[in-house]
């Protein structure tokens, strides 16, 4: 590997490494298939675990009889929630939101009630996975089947069946008297909403309904656990946070975190869905029971039915506007599916729904609603895409009403430095307007629209990004290369984006840094990979550790030359004596002299940074609608995003393309299908339709760089923003193509065809409009 450095001038701002495009450090392992994923793990004398899952969406468990399963061939252990150790209820911080331990436990192994189809009830360990699966069929469970609650409107209705008889609504801080399926009612408010609407010339009030969707990572969940005779537990799994695996497992099993070593295996996609644990504590309990390692892997239907998708939602938006296009007030109500246990990302949706706009009077209400579906988890800017679908299509309507170009209208109302968001935060320097300007001047936006049933749509989106805690260790090798030990599992090319920041600081090449994601015993505490935080926050730890290394290297040079440390100056990788210009040594040479100057050199840094930079994106999309079939074909796509500073532009482009593609899937193909019994009818990749390469155009990207003042290189998180605008951009493009506003997701061919036929008055009799 060589040639990482594209030269100073190309990178701008005088950076050597930042902004160049070196080959990724984990690239060879990935393309040769040698990277080790959880399913590749082969421990000797390992048992295999399988889970018995509920065939009902909502039922009381009357009895469980595991005796026949236990007597089945090859079976070594069977566990249920009765085998959990006693524990007091508490809250565990997952990194991207807290989880209630009691819920986490009941989600892993049902306790008294099953709350969704696929809800785990029991687990079996056997000598091979097929015997384990066969044995799960011999577990006898008696149910009292209850009516499932499948839609937010039904869940919120008076007299709805209750998922949890002891759940009372926490409404703006007060508990409701009666139990309910609504766990929380939250509100953000600034200004005077009535005054704002009184000032408006026109008010737009619209309602939206979006389907539950899954992250669709290609690698199913897996975990292997070995509970050693000395009481130490080792867990290998596919996770976005090894320390979070440790914390969740320790909480669920009521053992000290320090007794667990969590080893993050290579990860085949997560997008937020691999933050909660599903298998790790079960594998651990089975291992404890049997004294052997236990390996568990999910099948695809288990991933769909029993892990954490992102919620469907019902959103109402009301926006008041002056004739000149200036928005006077905005009001929204967001009800999000939490799934079977509370904790939807509705609060995030509330923060993001009007985030791109400077509006004086804003009110946003949020409802966290339980339904008999899997407990939702984070998915790439969780909650923001639903919200943006609602607000950004109304913005498009307003632009048409005001006879303004949709980008013009957005510029007129755009949030800037100092704008106060609905949740009360005032923005630091942001780059929203710059994304609008980049789109406006882009060739795509200027290109004429040709052909019938073709349309163009624009939409913007925001994600706030996260900071959290990170630790790294940097060690210098005698040959002048550097080991970078970190705890941030790499789902987006962060090994390389971190190595590049270290190389920039130390004046060496990116290839001279060897980044490694290690287990929880081998690095300081590090929060999850989520909230688009790793290149930013772990990057700050890398910079701090790098500076310490540089300082120590300077001290070693001083020792070598027998001068005072203050006499040594550093430029890139060259260390010089200020007083004696004949004395100079490179980083590599100095590394070779470490033994003579005090031995090994290793520095550590742990950070918990503020100064997170939120990100904005604006997307343009062209579509063609087949008027006979309702099929929407995406013809062209351009995404502009304020990325702060692109450390490795190829990976930033990749993030934007990936986010846009997932958003396109969400917009026009994907969605959980449920029958009336609450059974998902498309729990496979054939019928849960994600876009294939043949459904997509090249996604063009525009990297807008407005540096984040909270990071020395200006880094903003980039991974989540790009999934926010696509649904609304597609909805606006479809409107442009066929003149019909679709306010339900997905806008699949069935829905588009129905809308077209309805418009023509040709909807067959008996078909619900």
């Amino acid at each position, binding site marked *: 590997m060589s040639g990482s450095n594209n030269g100073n001038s190309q990178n701008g701002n005088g950076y050597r490494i930042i902004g160049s495009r070196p080959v990724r450090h984990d690239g060879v392992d990935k393309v040769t298939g040698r990277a080790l994923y959880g399913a590749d793990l082969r421990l000797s004398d390992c048992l295999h675990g399988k889970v018995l899952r509920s065939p009902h969406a909502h039922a009381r468990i009357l009895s469980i009889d595991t005796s026949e399963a236990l007597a089945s061939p090859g079976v070594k252990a069977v566990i249920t929630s009765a085998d959990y150790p006693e524990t007091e209820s508490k809250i565990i911080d997952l990194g991207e939101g807290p989880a209630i331990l009691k819920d986490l436990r009941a989600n892993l192994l049902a306790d008294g009630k099953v709350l969704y189809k696929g809800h785990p009830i029991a687990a079996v360990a056997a000598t091979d996975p097929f015997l384990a699966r066969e044995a799960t069929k011999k577990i006898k469970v008696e149910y009292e089947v209850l009516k499932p609650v499948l839609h937010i409107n039904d869940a919120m209705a008076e007299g709805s069946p209750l998922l949890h008889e002891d759940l009372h609504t926490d409404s703006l801080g007060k508990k409701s008297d009666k139990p309910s399926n609504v766990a929380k009612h939250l509100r953000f408010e600034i200004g005077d909403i009535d005054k704002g609407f009184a000032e408006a010339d026109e008010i737009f009030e619209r309602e939206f309904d979006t389907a539950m969707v899954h992250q669709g990572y290609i690698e199913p969940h897996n975990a292997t656990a070995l509970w050693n005779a000395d009481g130490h537990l080792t867990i290998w799994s596919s996770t976005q946070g090894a320390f979070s695996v440790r914390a969740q497992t320790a909480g669920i099993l009521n053992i000290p975190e320090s007794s667990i070593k969590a080893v993050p295996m290579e990860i085949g996609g997560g997008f937020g869905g691999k933050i909660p644990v599903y298998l790790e504590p079960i594998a651990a309990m089975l291992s404890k029971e049997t004294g052997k390692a236990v390996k568990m892997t999910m099948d695809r239907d288990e991933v769909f039915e029993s892990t954490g998708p992102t919620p469907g939602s019902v959103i109402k938006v009301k926006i008041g506007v002056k004739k000149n296009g200036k928005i006077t007030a905005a009001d929204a109500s967001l009800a999000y599916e939490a799934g079977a246990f509370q904790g939807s990302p509705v609060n995030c949706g509330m923060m993001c729904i009007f985030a791109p706009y400077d509006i004086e009077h804003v009110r946003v209400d949020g409802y966290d609603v339980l339904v008999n579906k899997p407990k939702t988890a984070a998915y790439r800017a969780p909650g923001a895409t639903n919200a943006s679908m609602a607000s950004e299509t109304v913005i498009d309507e307003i632009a048409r009403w005001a006879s303004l170009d949709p980008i013009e209208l957005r510029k007129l109302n755009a949030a800037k430095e100092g704008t106060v968001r609905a949740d009360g935060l005032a923005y630091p320097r942001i780059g929203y307007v710059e994304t609008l300007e980049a789109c406006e001047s882009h060739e795509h936006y200027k290109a004429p629209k040709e052909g019938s049933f073709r349309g163009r749509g624009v939409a913007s989106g925001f994600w706030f990004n996260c900071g959290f805690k990170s630790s790294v260790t940097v060690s210098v090798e005698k040959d002048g290369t550097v080991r970078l030990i970190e705890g941030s599992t790499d789902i987006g090319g962060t090994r390389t984006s971190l190595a590049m920041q270290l190389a920039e600081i130390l004046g060496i090449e990116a290839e001279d840094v060897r980044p490694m994601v290690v287990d929880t015993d081998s690095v300081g505490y590090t929060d999850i990979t989520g909230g688009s935080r790793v290149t930013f926050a772990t990057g700050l730890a890398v910079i701090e550790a790098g500076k310490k290394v540089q300082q120590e290297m300077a001290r070693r040079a001083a020792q070598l030359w027998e001068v005072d440390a203050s006499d040594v100056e550093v430029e890139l990788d060259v260390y010089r004596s200020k007083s004696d210009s004949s004395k100079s040594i490179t980083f590599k040479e100095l590394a070779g002299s470490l033994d003579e100057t005090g031995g090994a050199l290793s520095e550590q840094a742990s950070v918990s940074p503020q100064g997170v930079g939120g990100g904005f994106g604006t997307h343009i999309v062209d579509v063609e609608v087949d008027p006979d079939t309702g099929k929407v074909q995406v013809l062209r796509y351009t995404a502009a995003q304020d990325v702060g500073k692109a450390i490795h532009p190829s990976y930033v482009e990749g993030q934007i393309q990936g986010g846009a593609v997932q958003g396109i899937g969400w917009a026009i193909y994907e969605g959980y299908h449920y029958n009336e019994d609450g059974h998902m009818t498309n729990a496979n990749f054939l019928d849960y*339709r994600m876009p294939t390469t043949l459904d997509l155009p090249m996604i063009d990207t525009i990297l807008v760089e407005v540096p984040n003042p909270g990071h020395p290189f200006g880094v903003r998180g980039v991974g989540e923003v790009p999934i926010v605008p696509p649904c609304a951009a597609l909805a606006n493009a479809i409107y442009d193509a066929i003149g019909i506003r679709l306010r339900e997701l997905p806008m699949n061919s069935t829905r588009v065809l*129905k809308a077209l036929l309805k418009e023509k008055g040709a909807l067959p009799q008996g078909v619900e409009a």
Partner: protein
Amino acid sequence: MDAFDYFAPDNLSEALTLLATPNKTSRPLAGGTDLIVQLRETGLKCDQVIDLKNLAELTQFQSEGGKGWTIGAAVPCSEIYENAEFASQYPGIIDAASLIGGIQIQNRASFGGNLCNASPAADAIPALIAHSVTCQVASKSGTREVNVEDFCQSPGKTVLSEGEILVSLKLPATPKRFGAAYQRFIPRNEMDIAVAGAGSSVVLSEDGKTIESLRVGLGAVAPTPLLVQEISDKLKGKEVDSATFEQAAEIARSYANPISDTRGEDWQRVHLAGVLTQRTLQIACERAQAAL
């Protein structure tokens, strides 16, 4: 998946004997693109799998010297569409063979398997109906012929009785001024099962302006793929124009009797049966006219 015995006989009579093993459930295997998935994932159980890919009768693919072609039941899709001579004569079949699965699947999946799987949404069958294909069936007690439109009886069920296998497909020679096409509707551009499908064929008059005869087969709109005989009866002799195509669509819609499921709704499938009938008839006519 449970363990099963695997046999790969090299002559037809041995295969038929194995299939008729008393007290054992047997499943014939061609490309396995349905069978292996069903064994692994959908709980299908059998005692023995009989691989038919070593049998000359099932792997033959040849021209019968002006009397049409024979395609063995285990011949994979890619072998069919890569044969240029065949492709020039059977365009509807080529359409179907080219869109079943991806290239790896096409290297295994056979038309025989597609028929025997008897999915209402099978892509090959409406095209085979359009091309007036007959099925050659064999058992230990002899052979028989079945028209392709009569081969499937209900979802997953065919006319084959125990001990019988589908050996090959007989394709009549295509007349002059013949054209055919198959299309399906899927929400994506790949990786989907037909929400609806239609295969059409026409024989045009010498001036290319009149339809002398035509056949339309529909998929995914009834428990089995359908031949819409009424289109053949009512529209022969009509002009090649949009009014004729629209009439065909209307008749097709009236024969569509689909279900709603996770892949599509009943009214949508009825509507699409009309759209695809119209579109495939038009392409079939264009292809016939191009050959004038």
